[in-house]
C-alpha cells in the first residue's frame, strides 16, 4: 500500500476514534482504531508503514488525550515491531491468524499501558482495565476482519504465503 493511502487510513482512524465513534460505544467501550490499524499494517503489509504511522499517530493520541506523552507511541511502535516479526511465521491469508494477531496486540497493549501507568503512579485499577478486554477483543477483531475483507486482501503476496500464485504466467 502506498504511504499516502496508509496515512489517510491512520488520519481517518484517529479522527473517528476521537469523535464519531464516541456516540456509538458498546457498554462505554469503543474500539481503538489506531491500534487496529497498527496491527493490520504491520501484519498484512511489507514495509514499515505500521511502525512509522503507529509511532506518529500514537504520539498525536498522547498529545491530545493523555497526561503522559509517550505511552501510546511506545506501545504502538513495539506492537508493530512484534507484528512485523510474527508475519514471517504466520500465513497472512487466514482470518484465524488475524484473530491471533488481534488478541496478542490488544492484550499486550492494555497490559503494558496499565504497567506504564503504575510506574508513573497513576491511579488505575487492574480489574477495571480487565473488564473491558473481552469487549475490546471482539470489537477489534470485527474492525480487522472488515478491513481485511475490503482492503487487506489487496496486500502484496509473497512466495511464502500458503496460496501464493505467481503473477508471471509461463507458457508451455
Amino acid at each position, binding site marked *: 500500500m502506498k504511504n499516502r493511502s496508509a496515512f489517510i487510513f491512520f488520519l481517518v482512524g484517529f*479522527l*473517528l*476514534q*476521537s*469523535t*464519531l*465513534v*464516541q*456516540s*456509538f*460505544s458498546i457498554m*462505554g*467501550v*469503543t*474500539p*481503538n*482504531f489506531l491500534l487496529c490499524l497498527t496491527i493490520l499494517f504491520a501484519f498484512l503489509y511489507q514495509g514499515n508503514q505500521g511502525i512509522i504511522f503507529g*509511532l506518529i499517530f500514537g504520539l*498525536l493520541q*498522547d*498529545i*491530545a*488525550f*493523555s*497526561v*503522559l*506523552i*509517550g*505511552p501510546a*507511541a*511506545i506501545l504502538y*511502535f*513495539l506492537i508493530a*515491531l512484534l507484528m512485523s516479526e510474527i508475519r514471517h511465521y504466520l500465513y497472512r491469508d487466514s482470518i484465524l491468524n488475524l484473530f491471533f494477531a488481534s488478541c496478542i496486540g490488544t492484550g499486550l497493549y492494555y497490559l503494558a*499501558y496499565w504497567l*506504564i*501507568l503504575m510506574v*508513573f*503512579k*497513576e*491511579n*488505575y*485499577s487492574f*480489574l*477495571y*482495565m480487565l473488564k*473491558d478486554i473481552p469487549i475490546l477483543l471482539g470489537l477489534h477483531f470485527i474492525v480487522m476482519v472488515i478491513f481485511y475483507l475490503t482492503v487487506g486482501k489487496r496486500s502484496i503476496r509473497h512466495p511464502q504465503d500458503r496460496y501464493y500464485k505467481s503473477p508471471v504466467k509461463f507458457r508451455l
Partner: protein
Amino acid sequence: MKWFREHTRATIAGVILLLLLSLTVASYVNQGSNSWIGIQLERVSAFLQEPVSDAGNGVSTTIKGIFQLRQLLAEREALLEENARLRNELIEQALSRADLAELRSLTEAMNYIDPTEDYSYVTAKVIAMDGSSWYRIFTINAGTENGVRKNAVVINGDGLVGRILDVGPNWAKVITVIDENNDVSFQVFRELSLLGILSGDGEGKIAGYMLDEDAAVIEGDILVTSGMEIYPQGIPIGKVSRITWDKDALLRTVEIEPAVDFTKVQKVTVIMTVAADTEQAEQ
C-alpha cells in the same frame, strides 16, 4: 560499534524507544505543559475534529431519535409536567421579589462584596474525547482567544466536570475529576459543616473520606465543592453511594457516584476567577 552496524534495525528501534521514554519522563515531570510543536499539532487536530464531531453528534442524535421514540415521548411528558410545576413556582416566587429588592438595597448600603462577581464564564463545546478508558480527557473548542486559562474550573448542567489541563489558542484540554490524582475538598450539602477530601478511585468513580471520623454522612447525601482550592464553593460533585469504616486508617470513607456522566458530556462552562485573569495579564 560493529554490532550496531550489523543490527541497524535493532539500533534504530532502541534509539527511538529511548527517546520516547525520555519524552514520557519529561511529560511526567512537567505535567500539563505542552511544547510549541504540541500546541500547533493540537491546533490542527482541533480544527479537523470540530466538523467531524458535529457530524457525528448529528448522526447519533438522528439514529437515537428513530430508535428511542417511545423514550422521547415519555421525556416530553415529564418535561411538560416539570414546566407546569416551574410555572407555579415562578408565580409563588414573584411574591418575594419585593423582599429581594429590599435586600439588594441593603447590600449596597453596607458595601457588601459578592464573591460570585469575581468569576467570568465561557461556554464551550466538546469536540473530541479519548476513545480509550484510560483517561476521560476531552478537548473543547475554546482557548486563550476566549479567555480560557490553565486550571480554570469546568462544569456542566449536572455539576463538576474537572479543570483545564492544557490550553492553546482555540482549544483546551479538560481533565475530569475522576482522573484527578489531586485531592478535592467537599462538604455535605445537607449539613455544610461536614467536610471531606476526595479523588478519583481508578475505577471511573470518585472516593474519599470525611475529615471528622464521626461525621453523620448518610447514603444519598449530595456533596458539593467546599471552595478551599481552585474549585468555587457549591458546585455539585455527586451522591454518596456507599459508606465504610476503614479500621486501619480510622477514617470514614465514602464512595461517590459522580453527578456528571462523563461519557456523554457535550457542552461545558469554564469558570475563571477575575483575580487569576488579572494576575496573568499583569505577567
